[in-house]
């Protein structure tokens, strides 16, 4: 028979808070005061109580009738055998007397247990504010497995037998020295604690009772049978099954925030279900149920999840751009020291780095970050090269997608939010970096190689976290889980704060405060106090892709408030953008910044060994894939100079009715216009087109190289044509300029060194006056010109922005890969001069007639070539051109 639990209901209804009670057991007697009720289960009610000196306990009041299967003494004896912080300890127990009341408690026992302040596992999982990632999962899994292990290693072997999620509490613990808190897990309610043998005997007995009752076949007994079955169903559950059940709950919790998880976490989530299934495998020989093994398997899975993905290159041509390379270690291994202007980038000065798309700006910026340096093969050596503490942040990740739809007026109205959002991004990246340093310092994984960074002790990490929480007004009381870092928790809290802010931005709820652009400066100042190493190794924010090609111009202008290019500033900023990507207006000390045009050396085509950077980048990749190579044995140099020699070769081939082949690593490098990501891709296509296995490379014939290059050029044209803004117009301008370039080579000559050589016209000199007038008088066309440079169809070829300003002329060259479609030379020779706005407008609005006119213009000493007269010849050799523009044949004859 089940006990009469109605008595519990009556007790629960009684107002007991504030009353005194005593617990008596044999000759011992203790007094307490009831504070409040904290829970109600099927068999008991729990209150928070305090003893005479104010120590808190949990008091469980349970019907004596519940102890039909075991004694209170036995429970206490078993519980005391569990000498572990994973179980709430029974402090005292016995008969209960309530003072100054006539409530009869003789039917109850009172069990006084250690007070554990914290939510139940059930409440923890239900609370949306809590997040579980791989670290937290492992930490809590470890505690759960410890619980199992404790029970198993007792003599006799014990079972808790009621390990549901309301009997597990999550509680914080503070390290008295480091003053930081962490979460742990403890099991409460040992009311069903018993030996395994006892449990098995009970189960068997209930089974027998049930069978006997069912055999009687009396309908009056059906309720008893049902109760017995319920009891059997519940208590037949093993502790190990309960633990696996909770692991499933934690998995589900983690899954609920999957969209925000890191790749490591996702990998872990992806593979975890299979492991959990094996923990309850019906085949006992396959089942993983030993607690130590359970945890070991989970930990191994997590470690593998973290470690995986560091060598995910299946060919040397994978991951052509830095943003695709996840692992810092991989990035550093692939990094080429041949990078242009590397010393300037490594100085402590503020810097504005710009260059064409794919020129490696992101690679160099990431290679300066502390996270990358720590991940490198030789961190000590790398750390010595960089005198600052670099924190990398990619603007394209969190700024690009979110803000572009906002209107200019929104940026003004929501400026406070926008600036804070950016500050939070910076600080989040800073915390993430500090977390990496802290991990290295506390695990001593790098030994002495970490140098001064090794002083980031847990105490300093705590001080840094506290300083940041104070500045950001983020809850100081937040605590983290055992085995995880306080900085990780802080990072999650900042993310949450940023997400909240984003909702306010979406709702357009105007900020009540003015923008605090100084927030990040204040944080850095506080951190310098908390961690003096920062006084000598200053914090430098490395903001990648800070281009108005990526983020709206209006947004950039607002964010500029939070940036300084002051040499004495703290922090210091280094930013990258594509050409013309940063409006420095509003940046503090913006005019003082040093500029580095990384692409210039490779765009100007003046250095004799300029192909070496691409060669080095590729050879490092082959080496990384265990296939070292001398690329020049596969793509031997053509040794055809990019201007007159190439133009002459093209013309001669044409006259001989032969095809000119673009080939050689030098030519491929020149075709890239500084876009080395494209260089990698072109070489890949060449290998594929020639069916050459990169593991067993052999020389690739020029013809095959040429075919792959021309196919690439065609796709580039397709790409331009379908760009969303004025793609068709851009396509026509590019197409006609390439056509002109080829036509000049075939049909016009100039005197050079007393010799007639083909005329090469593939760049434009535009006067500043024409550009200014275009802006004022024809803003739509000015936008088109800007778009042409923004998207890399035309690229500036002055060494710096300062030179542009001084020269009073802007020089733009057509993207070189496009020239391959019509077969033209790649270097610069004679410009297409545009001195007034009307000519510029002509090019932008009617490129067909513009180039025909330009072809007819007798510039300087040029003359029609004797052999080909003045008839446009490009059409003769470019079949595609004939088909696409049949009318050109008529026009060209005029």
């Amino acid at each position, binding site marked *: 028979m089940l006990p009469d639990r109605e008595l519990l209901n009556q007790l629960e209804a009684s107002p007991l808070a504030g009353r005194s009670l005593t617990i008596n057991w044999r000759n011992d007697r203790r007094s307490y005061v009831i504070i409040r009720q904290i829970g109600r289960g099927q068999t008991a009610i729990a209150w928070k109580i305090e003893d005479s000196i104010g120590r808190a306990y949990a008091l469980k009041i349970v019907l004596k009738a519940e102890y039909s299967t075991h004694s209170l003494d036995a429970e206490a004896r078993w519980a005391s055998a569990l000498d572990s912080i994973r179980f709430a300890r029974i402090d005292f127990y016995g008969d209960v007397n309530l003072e100054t009341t006539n409530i009869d408690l003789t039917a109850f026992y009172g069990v006084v247990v250690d007070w554990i302040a914290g939510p139940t596992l059930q409440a923890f999982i239900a609370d949306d504010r809590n997040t579980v990632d791989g670290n937290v999962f492992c930490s809590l899994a470890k505690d759960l497995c410890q619980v199992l292990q404790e029970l198993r290693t007792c003599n006799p072997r014990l079972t808790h037998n009621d390990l549901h999620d309301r009997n597990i509490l999550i509680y914080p613990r503070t390290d008295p020295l480091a003053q930081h808190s962490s979460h742990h897990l403890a099991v409460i309610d040992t009311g069903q604690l018993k030996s395994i043998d006892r449990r098995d005997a009970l189960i068997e007995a209930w089974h027998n009772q049930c069978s006997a009752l069912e055999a009687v076949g009396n309908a009056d007994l059906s309720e008893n049978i049902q109760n017995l079955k319920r009891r059997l169903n519940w208590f037949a559950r093993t502790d190990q099954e309960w633990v696996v059940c909770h692991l499933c709950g934690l998995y589900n919790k983690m*899954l609920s925030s*999957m969209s925000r998880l890191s790749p490591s976490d*996702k990998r872990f989530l992806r593979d975890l279900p299979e492991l959990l299934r094996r923990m309850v495998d019906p085949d006992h020989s396959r089942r993983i149920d030993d607690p130590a093994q359970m945890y070991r398997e989970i930990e191994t899975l997590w470690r593998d999840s973290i470690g995986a993905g560091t060598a995910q290159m299946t060919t040397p041509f994978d991951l052509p751009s830095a943003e695709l390379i996840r692992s810092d270690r991989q990035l550093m291994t692939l990094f080429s020291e041949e990078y242009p202007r590397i010393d300037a980038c490594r100085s402590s000065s503020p810097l504005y780095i710009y260059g064409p798309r794919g020129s490696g700006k992101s690679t160099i910026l990431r290679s300066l970050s502390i996270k990358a340096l720590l991940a490198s093969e030789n961190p000590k050596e790398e750390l010595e090269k960089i005198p600052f503490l670099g924190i990398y942040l990619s603007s394209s*990740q969190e700024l690009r997608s979110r803000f572009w739809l906002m209107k200019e007026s929104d940026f003004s109205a929501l400026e406070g939010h926008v600036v804070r959002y950016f500050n939070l991004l910076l600080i989040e990246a800073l915390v993430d970096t500090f977390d990496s340093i802290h991990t290295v310092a506390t695990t001593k994984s790098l030994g002495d190689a970490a140098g001064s960074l090794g002083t980031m002790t847990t105490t300093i990490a705590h001080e840094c976290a506290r300083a940041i929480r104070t500045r950001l007004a983020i809850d100081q009381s937040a605590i983290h889980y055992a085995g995880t870092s306080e900085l990780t928790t802080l990072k999650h809290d900042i993310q949450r704060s940023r997400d909240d802010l984003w909702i306010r931005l979406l709702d357009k709820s105007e900020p009540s405060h003015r923008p605090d652009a100084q927030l990040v400066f204040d944080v850095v100042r506080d951190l310098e106090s908390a961690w003096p190493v920062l006084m000598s190794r200053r914090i430098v924010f490395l903001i990648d892709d800070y281009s108005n090609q990526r983020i709206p111009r209006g947004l950039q202008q607002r964010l500029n408030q939070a940036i300084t290019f002051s040499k004495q500033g703290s922090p210091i900023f280094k930013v990258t953008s594509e050409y013309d990507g940063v409006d420095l207006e509003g940046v503090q000390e913006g005019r003082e910044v040093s500029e580095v045009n990384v692409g210039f050396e490779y765009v100007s085509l003046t250095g004799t060994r300029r192909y070496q950077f691409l060669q080095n980048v590729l050879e490092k990749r082959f080496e990384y894939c265990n296939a070292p190579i001398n690329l020049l044995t596969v793509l031997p140099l053509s040794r055809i100079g990019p201007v007159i020699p190439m133009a002459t070769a093209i013309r001669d081939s044409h006259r001989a009715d032969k095809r000119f082949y673009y080939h050689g690593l030098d030519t491929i490098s020149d075709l890239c216009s500084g876009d080395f990501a494209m260089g990698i891709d072109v070489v890949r296509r060449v290998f594929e087109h020639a069916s050459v296995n990169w593991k067993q490379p052999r020389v690739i014939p020029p013809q095959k190289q040429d075919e792959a290059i021309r196919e690439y050029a065609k796709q580039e044209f397709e790409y331009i044509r379908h760009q969303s803004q004025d793609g068709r117009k851009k396509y026509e301008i590019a197409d006609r300029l390439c056509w002109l370039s080829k036509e000049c080579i075939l049909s016009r000559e100039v005197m050079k060194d007393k010799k007639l050589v083909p005329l090469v016209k593939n760049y434009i000199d535009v006067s500043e006056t024409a550009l200014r007038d275009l802006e004022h008088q024809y803003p739509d066309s000015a936008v088109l010109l800007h778009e042409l440079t923004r998207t890399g169809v035309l690229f500036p070829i002055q060494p710096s922005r300062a030179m542009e300003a001084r020269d009073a002329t802007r020089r733009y060259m057509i993207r070189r890969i496009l020239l391959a479609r019509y077969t033209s030379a790649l270097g610069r020779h004679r410009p297409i001069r545009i001195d007034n706005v009307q000519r510029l407008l002509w090019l932008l609005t009617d490129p067909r007639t513009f180039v025909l006119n330009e072809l007819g213009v007798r510039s300087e000493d040029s003359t029609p070539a004797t052999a080909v007269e003045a008839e446009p010849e490009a059409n003769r050799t470019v079949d595609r051109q004939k088909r696409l523009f049949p009318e050109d044949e008529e026009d060209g004859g005029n």
Partner: protein
Amino acid sequence: MAEIEQTVIADIVGRLPQLIPWNREELLGQEISLMIVCAGFEERAVAIVDEIADTKVKHLLIVEYPTNTEDNASAIARLESIPSATRSRVKYDRSTFLSEICHKIEAHAGEGEDVLIDVSAMASYVTSRVLKALWDKSAAANTRLFYAEAREYHPTNADWTKFFSRVTDPEDNLSIAESYEATYFQSRGVEETYECDAFPGRNEGPLATELIAIPSFSLQRVKSMTTFAEARYNVTQRSIHWFLGSPPDKVKNGWRFDAIAKLYNVRSGGVSVDTRDYRDVVRKLDEAWGEALRNERHLVIAGMGSKMQNVGVFLFLSMHPECGLLHCEPKEFIAGRYTDGVGPKWCLNIGRVGEIKDLLLSRGRLSFRW
């Protein structure tokens, strides 16, 4: 015996409501708290007017397009004739539409109230935001979608045959584009290509991105999205997965599948996706997501498919919000070369939004059973 079960996509798709023929009787005498319609130029844009003639509407919300103002004028007038206690109009503007529609839905679709959305004339960039607003602001509302197919879709088979016979090099994308754009099927030009504010995606890692293109006959817009993906996420041609629409009426419209494949030069690897059964796109996108999870790739969707495919894409993104969505708005739709007439009418009874949300979020969840 304890066991662990994982909710797989089949469990979810199997519980998603089916598209059923519209039955006007079902709404007789009922009260719709909020009805959202879109004033497009297609004939089917106003097909709903007669279908709810005997139903009370508390608030009517008409979404207007900024393009084709003259073409759409008659639809606005016709939709305005729906009797309703109150009404409002929202002019679509990509930078404000999501927040505007959120406010409207919050104001008019409370707990247990009925919402009716006509997706027949809704562009993909409207559907995703309307449904997102409903999801976020009115989980307790009961929702029905109305969908009227068109009788004929452009280009017609004859148009297509005529066009394709003139393409000189069918395997050359530039050649196809040159010829095709001159035909101006469906729409003209590209106003803007962008990441949807409702689903910007989240590429933690970051991981390499793959694009799922669900193309239509609007070649310029689809190409604009693939180009955008290349520029923004370094998506190479090899990383584009083509989900080609497979019309349910194979005899009449089956040729469209092959035509789309030819138009985009998809010679292998194209995935056939039903244009009417929205659950098919949910299932197939989820398969692609699973593959991306295994290969550690980030997914972005360029959705230009059918109306019901747009609904499916939305449901998929609700399940996997880390994936991004691209939109492309044209400068102008070509009213005379879009669709003709009104075809079969359908109802999708979503029911309580919160329940569908929970169902979708259960993807991958583990259930422990004793």
